[in-house]
């Protein structure tokens, strides 16, 4: 592949990638362009919400997408619906650098985790000072916080947190305790948000003083509201992977494998970990980040504290939880 001149494209083939709509500019410059340069594979992209894109490929076998990057919950659903091609992990040179747990998840779902996020609390230190999840239930936060909506990536994590507050694990009582805790939380909640940029605006306009948020959004929030502080409570957090998979109907499997391997490579994992890049925490264990580089990422200590969510359980109960959530939180 290396013999090709930059101009010709016929040799490397092409691949159609479906990925998140966040930071499309950095995705283009830090991942896709270098990928094409190195492999000579041309990339077409579709940007959008994880769940929307999952819905589309689920209903439309002819979507033309080869590789898809999804949030963990959607990857689990996709796997369950058998939308993904069975992966031959031997074709991925960088797969061996993933942790055992990650490798297991990859084999379970035929989708490879390429980054992970976790949640914490972001707050305006001029107004409040927060350290622990339980503080979110304080009466003096009435009408001052925002939490992720059930339908978003961290919606289930929010439910887990509520379960922890009620001291009954979600998986043990089908969320009964968690919903009770949410009902208690409701007076404090201004908004259940779907887009983390909503938070930027709400902090900016003083609508909220604190929010439960995924770490990937922290950089963006602090850029627009430099005062904001982010904390991952010592009691622990919940992690969520973003996975990449090849679609069953893909006609460009070779190029697709190349892309995934590229995505897992040390060079790229390190690059996109940058705060000005995609701010993606690395999964490649070869990547080492300094403390400042590790800021706002699920890495090191935080990664150790991070608990996982049983999306196989969650997705089975999602429909009824959404309905309950809507009745309690959005009514």
């Amino acid at each position, binding site marked *: 592949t290396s013999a090709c001149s930059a101009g010709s494209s016929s040799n490397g083939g092409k691949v159609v990638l479906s990925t998140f709509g966040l930071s499309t500019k950095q995705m283009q410059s830090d991942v896709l362009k270098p990928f094409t340069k190195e492999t000579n594979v041309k990339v077409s992209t579709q940007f959008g*919400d994880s*769940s*929307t894109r*999952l*819905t*589309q490929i*689920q*209903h439309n076998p002819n979507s033309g997408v080869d590789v898809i990057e999804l949030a963990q919950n959607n990857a689990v659903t996709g796997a369950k619906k058998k939308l993904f091609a069975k992966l031959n992990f031997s074709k991925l040179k960088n797969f061996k650098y993933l942790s055992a747990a990650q490798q297991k998840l990859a084999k379970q779902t035929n989708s490879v985790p390429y980054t992970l996020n976790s949640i914490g609390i972001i707050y305006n230190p001029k107004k409040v000072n927060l350290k622990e999840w339980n503080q979110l239930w304080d009466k003096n936060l009435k*009408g001052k916080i925002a939490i992720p*909506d059930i*339908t978003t990536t961290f919606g289930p994590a929010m439910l887990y947190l509520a379960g922890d507050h009620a001291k009954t694990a979600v998986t043990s009582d089908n969320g009964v305790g968690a919903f009770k805790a949410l009902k208690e939380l409701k007076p404090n909640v*201004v*908004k*259940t*948000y*779907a887009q983390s940029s*909503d938070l930027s*605006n*709400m902090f*900016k*306009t*003083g*609508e909220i003083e604190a929010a439960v948020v995924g770490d990937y959004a922290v950089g963006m929030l602090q850029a627009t509201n430099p005062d904001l502080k982010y904390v991952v409570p010592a009691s622990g957090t919940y992690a969520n992977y973003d996975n990449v998979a090849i679609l069953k109907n893909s006609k460009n499997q070779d190029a697709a494998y190349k892309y995934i391997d590229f995505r897992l490579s040390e060079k790229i994992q390190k690059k996109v970990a940058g705060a000005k890049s995609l701010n993606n925490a690395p999964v490649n264990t070869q990547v080492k980040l300094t403390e400042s580089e590790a800021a706002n990422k699920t890495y090191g200590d935080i990664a150790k504290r991070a608990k996982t969510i049983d999306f196989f359980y969650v997705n089975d109960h*999602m*429909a009824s939880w*959404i*309905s309950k959530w*809507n*009745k309690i*939180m*959005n*009514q």
Partner: protein
Amino acid sequence: MLKSSKLLVITEVKMNKRAAIYLIVPAFTGVLIFTFFPLIQIAIPTFQNNQSIFSEYIRFLQNTYNVQVISRTFLIAITTVVIVLIMGLPISLWIARQRTNVKQVLSLLILFPMLTNAVVRNFAWIIILGRDGILNKFFMALHIVNHPLSILYTNVSIIIGSVYLFLPIMITSLVGSISELNIEVEEAAAVLGATPLKSFFRILIPQLTPGIFTGCILVFAGTMTAYTTPQILGGNRHLVMSTLIYQQAMTLGNWQSASVIAIVLIIISALSMWIMRRISRLLDRRPSLA
């Protein structure tokens, strides 16, 4: 605008009648295949239920959350119509009574926001309505309120956004109706002793009834079915039917449910428009000259 304008073939023309078929069929087939067929396709599964054909709908309506979304959608639409009408009437009157060239400039000015991207228009209100936004700053400065009001991401902000979205449509429609009125009718009322206010309510408004209802129906239908405004200014806590359709369909992948809501939305908006049109006819006391 929704009303089909009256077609009148004045005199029979000696022309190949077959030509009509060739001219109409392409557009007819297009609308048939791409509007009616898809609607039928999404409607059919919603009636295929083991229990009864309506059980999907019954289940949908038994969920109080859904009923709340429906009533919110309806309430927002009605409120928007009323506000748009109250704001639109005076300015329409004012524009319609300007000299021709001034009227043209004003009409263009009104048209401009109407032709501006909906994202842009709604987004502007985020800047204004936020807790720290222009409006709150203004109110606080004037000591109208002591604490900033939470307007953004509420039903109120959706209504404000919708009003902004549809006010130009109402004005454009009303200016048209008012321009058609015979100004001498109002002069006659004045000569007969009617003050301007009396003339407004007893002479102008009654004559405008059909125009007002046409405008109202446009605004109502537009607000009922609008997606972008509630999406940007409402957020998920304040879903309306169209944002609920999208959420069900694409975020949650529940197409059956999305179809049910879609059908309910079409029925509700069609029914409301039909009722409004009936009311309009009842109120318009002028005999129709068929």
